């Protein structure tokens, strides 16, 4: 490696210490809302950012790519709420602390950010696998469910800083307890707009999802309902992201 490359790497590291990535072993993911005869999806081992992307990190990205500042971004790629909590194109201001997760970002923006770092958004299968370690006991799952529900029920007018929650068995933090997160295939979450019938009656019936893998998993219902309600240009107060990449 040349001295110049070393210097550049050191400079980059000083400017923005990269977020750690945690390895999540592969496995299989059974979709929460499974069609009849649907088989588990194989998931290859991958790496996942240990916490969501922060305002400070996103600001660096926007500095390097002015086309993603809020005054320049096309409405097709991010709606008018995009980075609306920042004080300016390149100023965080009092509503957006550097260490808080960045929110008010669209799926397009999140995708571009990850690509810039040689990463990508995690798929639904990857995200859910990382968030629901398959070897957890039933008790641990139930306790996690209670914690997640309690979190979902709390008001979230002020976001905590990223990386604040304890790591799970893979060392990944904040999958619950901080924000919603974009996934690559957000539009694959098929909670119908009216979950009790209509176009997807074969999936849902009579107010309870007969096809849902765990009809008591209210927290998962809420996550899937949330994903179903967004479109790729939406920028929302509680919606941020983290990046993933396939394991080497």
């Amino acid at each position, binding site marked *: 490696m040349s001295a110049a490359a070393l210097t550049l790497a050191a400079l980059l590291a000083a400017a923005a210490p990269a977020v750690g990535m945690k390895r999540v072993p592969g496995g299989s993911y059974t979709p929460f809302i499974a069609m009849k005869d649907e088989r588990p999806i194989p998931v290859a081992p991958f790496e996942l950012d240990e916490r969501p992307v922060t305002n400070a990190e996103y600001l660096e990205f926007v500095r390097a790519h002015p086309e993603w500042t809020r005054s320049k971004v096309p409405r097709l790629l991010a709606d008018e709420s995009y980075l609306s909590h920042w004080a300016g194109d390149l100023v965080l201001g009092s509503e957006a602390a550097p260490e808080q997760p960045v929110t008010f970002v669209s799926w397009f923006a999140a995708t571009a950010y990850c690509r810039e770092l040689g990463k990508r958004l995690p798929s639904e299968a990857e995200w859910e696998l990382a968030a629901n370690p398959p070897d957890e006991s039933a008790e641990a799952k139930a306790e996690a469910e*209670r914690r997640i*529900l*309690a979190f979902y029920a709390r008001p979230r007018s002020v976001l905590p800083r990223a990386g604040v929650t304890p790591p799970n068995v893979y060392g990944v933090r904040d999958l619950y307890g901080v924000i919603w997160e974009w996934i690559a295939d957000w539009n694959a979450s098929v909670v119908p*707009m009216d979950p009790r019938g209509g176009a997807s009656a074969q999936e849902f019936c009579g107010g309870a999802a007969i096809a849902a893998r765990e009809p008591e998993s*209210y927290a998962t219902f809420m996550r899937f309902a*949330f994903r179903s*309600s967004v479109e790729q240009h939406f920028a929302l107060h509680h919606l941020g992201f983290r990046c993933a990449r396939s394991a080497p």
Partner: protein
Amino acid sequence: MRELAALLLALFVAGACERPKTGGAPPLGEIDPASLPVVEAELGHAPQAAPPVKRNHPAKVVVKLEVREVVKDLADGVQYTFWTYGGNVPGPMIRVRRGDLVELHLMNHPDNAMPHNIDLHAVTGPGGGATSTFTAPGHQTSFTFRALNSGVYVYHCATAPVGMHIGNGMYGMIVVEPDEGYPPVDREYYLMQGEVYTRGNFREPGLQPFDMQRAIHENPAYVVFNGRDGSLIGEHALSANVGEHVRLFVGNGGPNLVSSFHVIGEILDTVYREGAREPEHDVQTTLIPAGGAAIAELELQVPGTFVLVDHSIFRAFNKGALAMLKVAGPENKLVYSGQEINEVYLGERSPEATAALEKAREEKAEGETLEAKMSRGKAVFMGTCSTCHQLEGQGLASVFPPLAKSDFLMADPQRSIHIVLTGLSGEVVVNGQKYNNVMPPLGNFTDHEIADVLTFVRNSFGNQGAPISPEEVAAVRAALPKPQPSGHP
């Protein structure tokens, strides 16, 4: 916009070709959406009902509902994160006329964490509007429907998980007046029953999370009117006057329980059960299903406080399903005499206790003399304490310690007060003798009663000591630790 235009066109065409008929009501007339007068809906905020429509022609009514996720008091000292239409539970009452075209806008506040939608039971169409109003936080949607059937209807959120959205407070009422409207009355009120599934038990303090297991087991900690324990109690009670005719729009958001709606001390003179066009009369208790509503009308003949309950009565007294209607005005003794007799009925009661009670009553007017305190204290003692400590305070050897000439009793008045308030269990030594038993707490007695009974025992059975004042009892009571939430954090 294109969908809306198509819908309006479809309605217009349908109106032109065949008149919608609904349940035996007169057929609705044709409408031309473009030429309908446009009015902004006047909403009713519980317990106030929305004002009557007072129109004899159809209109296009624009309704705007904003969804807010807010922390509000569920009971004194208890908070809950409610999901609401408009910031309150229930959501605002919407009131339109049969045949109206209703343009409904749903705004999901940007600070909200959840997507939401709305299903109005007054809608004829898939999902009752739910499919057309699925809205992410920071977005808004709208759709239009024609109110084909008159009646009183519940609306609610139908986003997964549906039960949780309703249980968190997302319900309200839409009234579709019949062509001629409802007969005028003196007052109209709007209330809705609903359950809340908190982790903590009834009135356990703090910000309480939703409890999924309780919801699935249909075992709520709270069953309340208008979203809060005590929402319509005391200074917040509904009010009316003797001689008035009162109409109650009563809905049940659920999500699980049906309501046996009853007004204690009144008969529901007129009930539009489920909002049906033909009313019923002289109803004692009317069933309001989860996701249902009724109109209940009262003619008020006598004054007093009338208590509105779910007559599944433990809900009223242990879960909050209780509201009040205070009626002012002159008595009508020919309808209700009030209490005419209240005298002692001996039954199985001991003559000693009865005599003491009578003496206490005689001396009531005499004020706070020691004798008066002793007399009242004796009544309490005979009625409660003497069961264990015996009539002469002698106790039961090796079982219940004596109060008579008791060194333990007389040594520490504060301790005595504390024991009466909180009970006592475990070993104590009284006059050199060990006792190991349990005394139940008697904290339900008033400070006065406890002061009196302690004054009595400290000056009876050979004891002599300073009287205890209600203030001393109050001080000890105030220093007791507050009940702590149990269960999960």
